[in-house]
């Protein structure tokens, strides 16, 4: 194994495998080992991840290759960066919890396997690491005892269905082209039959779509995100699901570029394959946002929000233009940052209060001010408001849609984006604002060790919001790897598109100036009087203690009334029923084994007779 890959993967896998053993000796040693491995890998990838010679090797008669290029570097840094931060957060988080060794083992394995996925330059290595990633993240989903089994099983079965459709696609490629390497597919793509091309597209779309939580394959995500421990959820939603995006990028731009795909048919000069993905993305964004609005559990809300945000990424990939792909990658980066941040803050709240149900929380702003700020900034970034990183991502996406005249998609995306405000506001309002329940009077802020990772993420979202060029240069070099699209041109100060430019530094300065002015004015001329929460009157009577002043339950009742009938249609229920019915059906087969020896003997004779009947067909 060449040096780079050995240096990258061996420490990661080694640390993960050692955790259960080292953890028995010393908790500190275990944490240090895991963290050092992840940090080392991060440093290695970000410093040397672009200029590495590929490693070709043979296994079981297949020609395989591992490689590293700017595209994988982008995603590796994303995975490892978020991995390092969430690990950091997890160390204090898991201190008091049981089975921390198990948790860190599966966490470490997930990180290592994700890097393996990104290193793989061929389908077989990809599939190998993909499956490892699936089972290790599955182990983490079922961390919370038996109650998590249903969610875990759902996650695993859906992942397996995805992985197996990927497997079918890859053996199809191997059977028809005789190669498994991504790079070789492009040249011989034209020799594939149309039906094979369609099959590869559909199978890989399902395969990667499951992991990206693309609708209608998303149903594992809410349950799995809700039930897994918060630091892992942050990594899961922020980084692992991005590998699905990476896979779709490989499918749509590496195996064959948009021009080659367009031969399968196009709609309005647009490859139908990509157009479908764009619509799936837009609908995912729209529907998931609507569902997120009516959730009562903060993690579940964020889970649906994740599904929705990844919808935007798919939309960007589906646009298949320079701006679209750039926007998709920007959104991927952005989503990793703010969704990691939001899950960490919810984790911080859970760490102190023991719940993430929003109707049980409220008024934590005084108790956990740092977490509040972190969540506020995360929410602003999610909503796509400058000067945070959410804005440039969405701006580029919208510009891409305008440039391609995709009006329908634009409308859907805009509506979804607006609806996202509803749930984003609710996170702030019901967790940190409003009335503090009495049982949380003694709640404190989380320790510094947990605040630091959150603030690092805050810094990143600010940085990429104010100075998007830094991210775009990186994205541009990643896009240069894709044979199907032109890399984006990056200016020095402003974002450019055919439809217009925007200078975010300027925007940030203006916003900062306004913000500062208001702050100074308020500080110099304090005009308001501080009002305590209970300092109000109801018809002249003082408020008795224990009255609920805050409506956190069923926050958006009018919304629910409007969309209720549609929200009742649930893909999840459909699948569950389908799975139940299938299981009942499959179970009937058991009754072939009647338990009667004579019946079995009869089967033997009948089989013999049957073979004699068909003897003519058997011999040729």
């Amino acid at each position, binding site marked *: 194994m060449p040096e780079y890959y050995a240096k990258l993967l061996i420490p990661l896998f080694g640390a993960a495998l050692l955790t259960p053993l080292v953890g028995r000796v010393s908790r500190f040693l275990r944490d240090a080992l895991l963290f050092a491995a992840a940090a080392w890998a991060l440093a290695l990838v970000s410093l040397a991840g672009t200029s590495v010679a590929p490693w070709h090797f043979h296994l079981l008669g297949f020609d395989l290759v591992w490689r590293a290029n700017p595209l994988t570097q982008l995603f590796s840094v994303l995975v490892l960066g978020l991995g390092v931060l969430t690990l950091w957060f997890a160390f204090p988080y898991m201190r008091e919890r049981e089975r921390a060794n198990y948790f860190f083992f599966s966490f470490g394995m997930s990180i290592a396997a994700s890097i393996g996925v990104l290193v793989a330059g061929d389908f077989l290595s990809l599939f190998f690491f993909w499956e490892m990633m699936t089972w290790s993240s599955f182990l983490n989903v079922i961390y919370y005892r038996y109650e998590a089994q249903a969610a875990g099983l759902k996650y695993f079965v859906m992942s397996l269905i995805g992985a*197996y459709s990927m497997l079918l696609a890859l053996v199809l490629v191997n059977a028809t082209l005789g190669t498994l390497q991504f790079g070789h597919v492009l040249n011989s793509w034209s020799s594939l039959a149309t039906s094979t091309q369609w099959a590869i597209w559909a199978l890989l779309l399902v395969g990667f779509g499951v992991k990206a939580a693309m609708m209608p394959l998303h149903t594992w995500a809410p349950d799995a995100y809700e039930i897994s421990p918060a630091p892992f959820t942050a990594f899961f939603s922020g980084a692992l699901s991005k590998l699905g995006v990476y896979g779709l990028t490989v499918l749509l731009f590496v195996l064959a570029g948009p021009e080659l795909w367009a031969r399968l048919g196009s709609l309005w000069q647009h490859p139908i394959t990509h157009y479908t993905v764009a619509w799936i993305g837009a609908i995912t964004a729209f529907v998931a946002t609507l569902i997120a609005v009516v959730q009562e559990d903060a993690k579940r809300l964020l889970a649906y929000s994740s599904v929705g945000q990844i919808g935007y990424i798919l939309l960007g990939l589906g646009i298949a233009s320079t701006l679209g792909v750039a926007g998709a990658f920007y959104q991927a980066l952005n989503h990793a940052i703010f969704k990691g941040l939001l899950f960490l803050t919810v984790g911080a709240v859970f760490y102190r209060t023991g719940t993430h149900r929003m109707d049980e929380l409220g008024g934590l702003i005084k108790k956990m001010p740092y977490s509040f700020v972190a969540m506020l900034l995360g929410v602003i970034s999610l909503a796509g408001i400058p000067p945070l990183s959410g804005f440039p991502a969405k701006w580029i996406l919208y510009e891409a849609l305008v440039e391609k005249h995709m009006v329908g998609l634009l409308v859907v995306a805009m509506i979804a984006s607006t609806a996202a405000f509803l749930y984003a506001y609710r996170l702030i309002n019901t967790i940190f604002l409003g009335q503090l329940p009495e049982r949380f009077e003694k709640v404190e802020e989380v320790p510094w060790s947990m605040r630091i990772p959150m603030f690092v993420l805050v810094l990143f979202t600010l940085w990429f919001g104010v100075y998007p060029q830094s991210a775009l240069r990186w994205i541009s070099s990643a896009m240069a790897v894709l044979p199907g699209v032109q890399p984006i041109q990056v200016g020095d100060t402003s974002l450019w598109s055919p439809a217009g430019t925007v200078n975010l530094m300027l925007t940030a300065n203006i916003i900062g100036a306004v913000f500062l002015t208001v702050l100074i004015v308020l500080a110099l001329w304090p005009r308001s009087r501080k009002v305590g929460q209970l300092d109000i009157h109801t018809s002249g009577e003082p408020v008795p203690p224990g009255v609920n002043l805050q409506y956190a339950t069923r926050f958006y009742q009018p919304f629910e009334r409007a969309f209720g009938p549609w929200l009742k249609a649930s893909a999840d229920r459909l699948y569950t029923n389908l799975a139940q019915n299938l299981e009942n059906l499959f179970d009937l087969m058991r009754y072939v084994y009647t338990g009667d020896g004579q019946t079995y003997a009869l089967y033997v004779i009948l089989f013999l007779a049957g073979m004699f009947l068909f003897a003519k067909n058997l011999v040729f």
Partner: protein
Amino acid sequence: MLDPVLLIALPLLTAFLVPLVRRAWRPLGEALPLLTLLFDLALAISYVPRALEKPIVVIIAGWRPPLGINLTIGPLGIFMAVMILFVAVLVAIYSIWYIRVEPKERYCMLCLMLVTGSLGMVLTGDIFNLFVFMEITSISAYALTAFIRDRDGSEAAFKYLIIGSLASNFFLLGVVLIYSSTGTLNMADLAAKMPSVDPRIAVPAVILMVVGLGVESEMFPLNGWAPDAYSMAPTPIGAVFGAIVVKGAVYALARMLYTIFNFQGVIHFLVIMGIVTLLMGEMAALRQRQIKRMLAFSSIGQMGLILVALGLGTAGGLVAALFHMLNHALLKALLFLTAGYLVYHSGSKEIADMDGMGRRVPLLAVAFSIGAFGIMGLPPLNGFWSKFLVISETVKAHYVAIAALALVGSVIEAVYYLRVVGRLFFKPADERVRAARLPVSAFVSLGLLVVAVVVIGLYPGWVMHVLQPAAHELLDKSFYIHSVLGP
């Protein structure tokens, strides 16, 4: 250089020595089966390089083939022999302290007879001899099924016996038919003469033989015996069934179809039978309540996958089939051996009673999970590679729908295995279950199996050195004929 006949003769001899030696000096009697098998394994491994180079043909009693009985130790035979002996050694280690098997000497005798029979099956070059060894294997298997003298054990054994002897009658009938038209029983000679045989004789013969061997190789619908026998025999015997008896039968099936008959139609017919077997096995396993019965159905499912790969008729397909045979033998042995102690510690065969075993006996539950993950085909365990190869070769042979169905079966398999694993680790334990330690023998055998599973998973390449010549031996008829009969 020792005579290869010893491979078969030693276990046979020991089988009858065990009761005598036990009377004379008990400790030696305890250790004798294990020592014999270990020696046998070493012997088999020592033949590997030579067998890979050129098949070893052993002539018995001075009659040269095609007249006399001969052993043909080619790459395939030695591969099967090493696999059988490896599992047998592990089962022997495991059984040293396994509690349920009394009276010990009969148990050892029967096991050794079974090993003798299956070794004979895979090494012999004579078709009637194959039948005899198959009968030795099955008779000891019947007896082992009824070994625990309870009601259900006898019932399972009786069913097994009915179907098994019906099948062996058919097999013998098939042998009679081809002898009547060729006048020879030597497999190489048969292979050479078969093309000139009237298909009106050859086709019934091949059908009868497929049915005869299909019973032991768990082909649907001939596998009614399997769930009962697996679940009622002493648990280590479940491992023996899954890893030795069935594999021997599949070997014989492959030998018949590829070396002797080589009717492409019949070979491809196996693909359909395989996929049906796979789906039936997995579906039936889905809601089993007893762990061993579930494992038995899972074994049927895996045999289905092996049959699919065998039926492809390509070199890659055969390599995949043999690889999966090896992996399945290791994994099923691991699962059955752990299940034995799971049953012992929880005091019940029901899966529902094994809640929380992962906390009481962690090593056991971890071993079971590794086995389950391996069977599901998750990397980095050995099952991943062979399953991948099977699926890949199936698609390569243009059976895309079959491959998709096999993957459906795989998903079902994941569901029921994960349910058990989830219960083991995550359901709160029953108070009756006490924390327990594994005896050294179980620890060693399970440990070796886990190591084998992981090592093959991480370095799948080296197994190919044996598998490729073995597949070649099956596919290239004339190679086999020439190496036995001379050019």
